[in-house]
């Protein structure tokens, strides 16, 4: 915990804090089918505890799947043959339904209760030593699942009133879900906002709307919240991101670390930026090369090593994860 806080405060650290954002791997650790793993919070906390002991990284991450929030709103969730859950058909089929969306109290949702159970358990296990990071989807990004991507883009283009109404609904939910997780035991929140990225929407859109949404939410979350663009680039919205009030930014593998460090200075620490999809094909030597290159640019503080998407695929070999931690320890020895 001290290591993470020190890095976020731009103080020198003993080694670069490392967030291995492992999710489905917990099921394998427990020997539980993935379909069953996410069904209860006890599994999730037990999985996170085992993973942290195994690899020695610096976070508990009780994330389940992105669609858990829209599932709590009533959306059907599909499951792949392997057991991965994903958003089913759109929750909102006609725009008029936006005005009839029922408010969801996260604390009364049996869907979300599994996350709170995991966080309560992890709080006891962590005993203040390892940060517990909960996840929320931003009001700007969750409509991709609520409406379907192209319907959402059409909405943005054609119906400002309905867009504003949907954002209002999502903002209330996001704030209450984030605070419920902090109440349950999370120390910080990861605010996933891929639609903030200029990869997705024009730069001016974030400046005009996305930033306002982020500032409103982050100012009402009762704890620190990182902004994560889930592989999306930040180029062109750095000034707006710095204005958000968030201390930490999850950034893309496509971005240059030195340029990012220069751009964000000590306004925002950086979280990234290993390519989780590519990591599936890494061997020991490739891992050493890639991670060493990142650590060489990480500097003495203000950096947390992680993948760039917010979840390391389960198909990344264990040897890669062990090697990442080995690189971090070796890097510390020569600092």
């Amino acid at each position, binding site marked *: 915990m001290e290591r993470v806080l020190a890095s976020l405060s731009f103080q020198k650290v003993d080694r670069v804090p490392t967030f291995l954002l492992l999710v489905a791997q917990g099921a394998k650790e427990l020997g539980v089918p993935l379909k069953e793993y996410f069904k209860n919070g006890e599994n999730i906390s037990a999985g996170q505890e085992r993973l942290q002991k195994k690899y020695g990284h610096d976070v508990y991450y009780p994330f389940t799947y992105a669609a858990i929030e829209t599932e709590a709103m009533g959306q059907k969730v*599909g499951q*792949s*043959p*392997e057991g*991965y859950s*994903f*958003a*089913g*058909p759109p929750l909102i089929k006609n725009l008029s339904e936006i005005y009839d969306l029922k408010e969801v109290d996260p604390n009364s949702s049996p869907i979300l209760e599994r996350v709170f159970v995991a966080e309560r358990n992890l709080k006891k296990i962590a005993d203040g030593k390892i940060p517990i990071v909960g996840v929320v989807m931003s009001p700007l990004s969750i409509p991709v699942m609520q409406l*379907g*991507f*192209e319907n959402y*883009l059409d909405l*943005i*283009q054609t119906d400002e009133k309905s867009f504003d109404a949907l954002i209002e609904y999502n903002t209330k939910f996001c704030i209450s879900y984030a605070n419920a997780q902090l109440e349950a035991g999370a120390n910080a929140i990861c605010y996933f906002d891929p639609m903030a990225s*200029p*990869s*997705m*929407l*024009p*730069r001016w*859109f974030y400046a005009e709307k996305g930033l306002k949404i982020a500032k409103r939410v982050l100012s009402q979350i009762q704890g620190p919240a990182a902004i994560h663009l889930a*592989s999306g*680039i930040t*180029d*062109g919205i750095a000034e707006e991101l710095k204005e958000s009030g968030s201390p930490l930014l999850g950034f893309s*593998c*496509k971005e240059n670390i030195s340029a990012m460090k220069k751009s964000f200075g000590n306004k925002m620490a950086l979280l990234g930026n290993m*390519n*989780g*999809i*590519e990591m*599936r*094909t890494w061997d020991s030597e490739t891992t050493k090369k890639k991670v060493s290159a990142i650590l060489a640019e990480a500097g003495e503080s203000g950096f947390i090593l992680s993948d760039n998407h917010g979840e390391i*695929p389960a*198909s990344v070999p264990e040897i890669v994860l062990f090697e990442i931690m080995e690189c971090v320890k070796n890097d510390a020895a020569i600092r």
Partner: protein
Amino acid sequence: MINYKNIKGFLLQNEILFAENELNSLSNQYDKIAIVKELVVPLLDEAGKEWEQGLLSLSQVYMMGKFFDGWFSLNLVDETFVGQSSAKLALAVFEDHHTLGKKIVKSVLNATGYFHQDYENKNSEQLIALVIKDEIEIIMLSSLMLHSALRISNFTNELQKKNLPTKVLVGGAPFRFDDHLWVEVGADGTSADAAGVIPLIERFSISRGQK
């Protein structure tokens, strides 16, 4: 080459009416084949590359494809008018509900006169049956989630087992982050942007003696 700078500028500023007027004016000066080959294809190709470079957003690329798709359907363009390729084409989302990528490719195909089947969201077994029934020669598969993308190998393996000659083109976020993923799943090609499927279709059509 037709100068498309004005249209592009109007579209990027969301001035749809001005873009329509400009396109209407140009279509009075040039025949539809020229409009497709010298305006639509290079403009969408340029937009796709600019998206890859971080200069345009996905929403802008989507909107451009949708604009041309809409214009062509309003102007009642015959589905075979361009006759670019007589290869039997299909597209689908593979075991996924995220349809934007397929939608953008569909707009490009519609706007450039490539007739195709749209199989919506299908799994491997369903696609094999459809590919056989419709004698599909080139199928374009889109996937946003890594675990769906990896399962495309089930489909390509099945094509091989059944000795079906269908070429498989893949696209979607996972393929943009791993240059070799398309090879890993047994596909025949990939494109980082929607307009990039056109040269791939041309290439496979030529190699199959379609031209």
